[in-house]
């Protein structure tokens, strides 16, 4: 360890990563400003309505993220290629961040409009469960040493855990809740300035999300490379002692 050793050659990040990072940096404030400029304060709640432009995109991006986890998990189980496992793990981490953000922003919006920070209504409860499932997914990963076994188990959680995501989305339609139904239904028509502002902000969030996932996946690749290299070093050292 006292001798300086040559590390492995560092794998380069994908070429799209830096431009997407810049795009996120520009798109995010631009979308927010657009939201304030083109949609008037709401009749009943005034500018509080603008919280929608961060709360809803956070939720969408988190749900899209969990779908990516689901697909990557299936692809891992199919191919046993660890790159899919790394993508699933990276996406799960970023999506947990956005789920937490959704809950926090929703709470901040709920206090002045509904009059409460939190209640156990089906939408809020299923979202909290979604957060817990993927926190458990991340915990499972950090508790499992063996790479292959970790990938297999977490893929199972990544697939089964996704069951809850459509429940979160449709909870406001299936059940009677305090939470209002979707302003922009993914399957419906878009018209008002509010819906357009919401979509613009969602695109900005999506770019930010792609950048974070790309960054985290790159980091996971580097971590893996470092581990393999350390193992190799340890092996060659023990060979030298014999």
């Amino acid at each position: 360890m006292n001798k300086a050793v040559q590390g492995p050659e560092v794998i380069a990040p994908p070429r799209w990563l830096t431009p997407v990072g810049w795009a996120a940096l520009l798109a995010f404030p631009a979308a927010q400003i657009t939201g304030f400029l083109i949609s008037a304060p709401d009749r009943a709640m005034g500018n509080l309505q603008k919280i929608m432009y961060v709360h809803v995109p956070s939720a969408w991006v988190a749900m899209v993220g969990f779908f990516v986890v689901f697909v990557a998990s299936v692809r891992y189980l199919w191919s046993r290629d660890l790159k899919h496992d790394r993508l699933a793990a990276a996406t799960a981490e970023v999506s947990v961040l956005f789920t937490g953000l959704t809950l926090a922003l929703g709470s901040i919006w709920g206090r002045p409009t509904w009059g409460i920070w939190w209640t156990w209504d089906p939408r809020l409860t299923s979202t909290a469960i979604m957060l817990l499932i993927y926190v458990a997914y991340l915990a499972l990963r950090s508790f499992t040493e063996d790479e292959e076994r970790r990938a297999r188990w977490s893929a199972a959680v990544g697939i089964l855990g996704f069951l809850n995501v459509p429940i979160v989305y449709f909870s406001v339609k299936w059940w009677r809740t305090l939470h209002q139904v979707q302003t922009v239904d993914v399957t419906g028509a878009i018209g008002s300035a509010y819906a357009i502002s919401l979509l613009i902000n969602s695109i900005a969030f999506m770019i930010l999300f792609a950048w974070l996932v790309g960054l985290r996946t790159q980091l996971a690749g580097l971590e893996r490379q470092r581990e393999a290299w350390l193992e190799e070093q340890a092996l060659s050292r023990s060979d030298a002692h014999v």
Partner: protein
Amino acid sequence: MTGKRTRTLGLIAGMVVVLGGFGYLLYGNIGENIVFFLTPSELLAKGGEAYDQPVRLGGQVKAGSVQWDAQALDLRFVIKDADGEIAVHSKGAPPQMFQTEMGVIVEGKLTHAGSQPLFESTNLMVRHSNEYQPPKDGHPKPEQMYKSLIKD
């Protein structure tokens, strides 16, 4: 490493579980068992059982029914749905979006007040619409809305 055939079978079994779960949720009847609140007519339909039980009641604030005593922080109004209405009593200031003809949900108990049922609310929540609209001409601007709130 398991064989390719076992893996394929495992994946198919997993997919069956996932799709079966989705199908159950979409077409099963669990939806009817999850109800966050009851409407006035549903609560009244329970008859004697409705009383003195913790419950959530939701509906629309009946036009002209709101009586707000700012000194005593005492609020009375009527919650209605298409077929029924229940008088509600609540303590403390309501959320700032509370207004007549707004959707509300109250937590508390149905009690007897003389011969009439009265809902004693411990928690009042405003249910707002998913549609947002710019203010009409003559409506106060949001900044003015906040100012009037601070004054109260």
